[in-house]
């Protein structure tokens, strides 16, 4: 069955959702099994439209829930297809059980999470509580800070995830509305260049290989479960980071766009730095530049790969920084934020004397303004000058009412 190719302009005006949908089309995904949820719907809707316009040769499976959507993806991936879907927030929560099935079964599925707050109170806007909820699910997690990156990282994710040495599913995160519904000029790849980069899907232990019947999703109890999980973690820690670097390098060669597991801006001589994710990275970059003009050596670290967490790279980048703020866009639920904890873990057994403080911000789509970041860098500089934390370790940014500080 033939399908038509699209002639794209070198630069197209796409929002993050459409950029992701175009990447699914160019990767020639075989099966999208999906259930709609704001703000991710346009991704799977986009694929469905491409299918009805004969621009992909695949199946769109409309199911009754997100649990069924990921279950459909798992079945299709076990059968031997290239598979992707998208969801957000409550939808991801309903998917949670099946996410662990997908990673444990070592099935390469690409899931676009368009980050959105978790109810209650019900909220459709961006924070990272959905991303954080599934951070231990065994999936590789990429984070896009812009629509361009949502496009690029989808193509990159297929190639990493499907590699036979990896065979782990991957999430591509982007900020709900802030990225998913914000249009920008996207540097495109031609259909042929994009597909050649991702490559033909190479099945492994697929159920449609009738000469080699396999049972997927077997049960193991105390005698085998631990060995399976150990193997999965070992591959995640030892194989995935190198494969990501290799694919990032290949993508740079093709597109000229360079990605790193940890993105850094003005970090070479930085004395104070902000570590954050999503669209906040671009805001922080702009403010860091302005702080430099005021004589504060400000830098920004953007986490591109959330899992496997780039522990050693973070330690190397931050080791000489005097004061660092970890910005977590998720309600911490009775603990320090995830970034605070991971960064603290990265630096703990080193000689670094870094002063680390954690900030909870932006819940439910609350804006992180330049003013917030100016104040934040100023506070970090005061910590650096004093040689000790002048505040408590956990604070809230941008919330109304009396100042909140903990720990």
């Amino acid at each position, binding site marked *: 069955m033939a399908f038509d190719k699209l002639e794209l302009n070198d630069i197209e005006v796409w929002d993050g959702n459409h950029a992701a949908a175009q990447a699914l089309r160019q990767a020639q995904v075989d099966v999208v099994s999906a259930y709609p949820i704001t703000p991710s719907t346009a991704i799977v809707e986009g694929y469905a439209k491409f299918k009805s316009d004969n621009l992909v040769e695949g199946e769109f499976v409309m199911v009754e829930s997100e649990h069924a959507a990921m279950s459909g993806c798992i079945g299709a991936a076990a059968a031997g297809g290239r598979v992707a879907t998208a969801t957000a927030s409550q939808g991801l929560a309903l998917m949670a059980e099946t996410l662990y099935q997908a990673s*444990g*079964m*070592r*099935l390469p599925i690409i899931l676009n999470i368009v980050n959105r707050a978790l109810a209650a109170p019900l909220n459709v806007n961006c924070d990272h509580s959905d991303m954080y909820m599934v951070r231990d699910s065994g999936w590789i997690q990429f984070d896009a800070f812009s629509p361009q990156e949502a496009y690029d990282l989808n193509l990159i994710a297929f190639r990493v995830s499907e590699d036979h040495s990896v065979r782990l599913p991957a999430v591509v995160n982007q900020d709900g509305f802030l990225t998913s519904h914000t249009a920008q000029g996207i540097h495109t790849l031609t259909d042929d260049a994009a597909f050649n980069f991702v490559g033909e899907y190479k099945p492994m*232990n697929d159920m449609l290989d009738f*000469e080699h019947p396999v*049972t*997927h999703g*077997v049960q193991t109890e105390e005698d085998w479960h631990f060995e399976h999980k*150990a193997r999965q973690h070992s591959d995640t820690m030892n194989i995935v980071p190198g494969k990501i670097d290799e694919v990032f390098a290949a993508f740079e060669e093709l597109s000229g766009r360079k990605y790193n597991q940890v993105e850094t801006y003005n970090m070479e001589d930085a004395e104070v730095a902000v570590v954050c994710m999503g669209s906040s990275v671009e805001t922080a970059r702009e403010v860091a530049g302005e702080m430099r003009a005021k004589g504060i050596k400000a830098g920004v670290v953007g986490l591109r790969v959330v899992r496997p967490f780039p522990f050693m790279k973070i330690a190397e980048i931050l080791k000489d920084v005097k004061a660092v703020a970890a910005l977590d866009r998720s309600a911490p639920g009775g603990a320090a934020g995830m970034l605070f904890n991971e960064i603290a873990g990265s630096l703990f057994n080193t000689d670094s004397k870094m002063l680390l403080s954690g900030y909870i911000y932006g819940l439910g789509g609350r804006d992180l303004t330049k003013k917030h970041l100016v104040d934040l860098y100023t506070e970090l500089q005061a910590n650096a000058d004093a040689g000790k934390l002048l505040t408590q370790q956990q604070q809230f940014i941008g919330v109304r009412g009396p100042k909140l500080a903990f720990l």
Partner: protein
Amino acid sequence: MANTGWDEFEIGAMLRTFDGEAGDIASTLQEDRNYTQNSSFSASVADWRLEKPVFNKDYCIDCQFCWVYCPDISIISRDKKMIGIDMDHCKGCGICVEVCPTNPKSLLMFPEQADEETEIAGWPAKEDKEK
């Protein structure tokens, strides 16, 4: 298999049914198939059973009802002749006995520890049907 380490198995919660290619599996009898140790055919689940069926071939008419109805493919039949029961996989559900149409039945349930020859020697006689 039981003592291998985390680095010694194929990835994924995945098990192979056969060693090598399956080949012409439809026309290969179970006992001639190259099942792996991981296949459920290689594993005995006899200890799941509390009662067992005993087969008395003296009354069997080879109707194949038991073969059709057995939910565990545990009735062994060759060339449409009933041979016996796969006692490694029979769970003792009793469906074969229930569907057996002969008089007396050619299959009856007995406690797991019952002696087969003794039970066959004492097999019930034909029942007179009420008219």
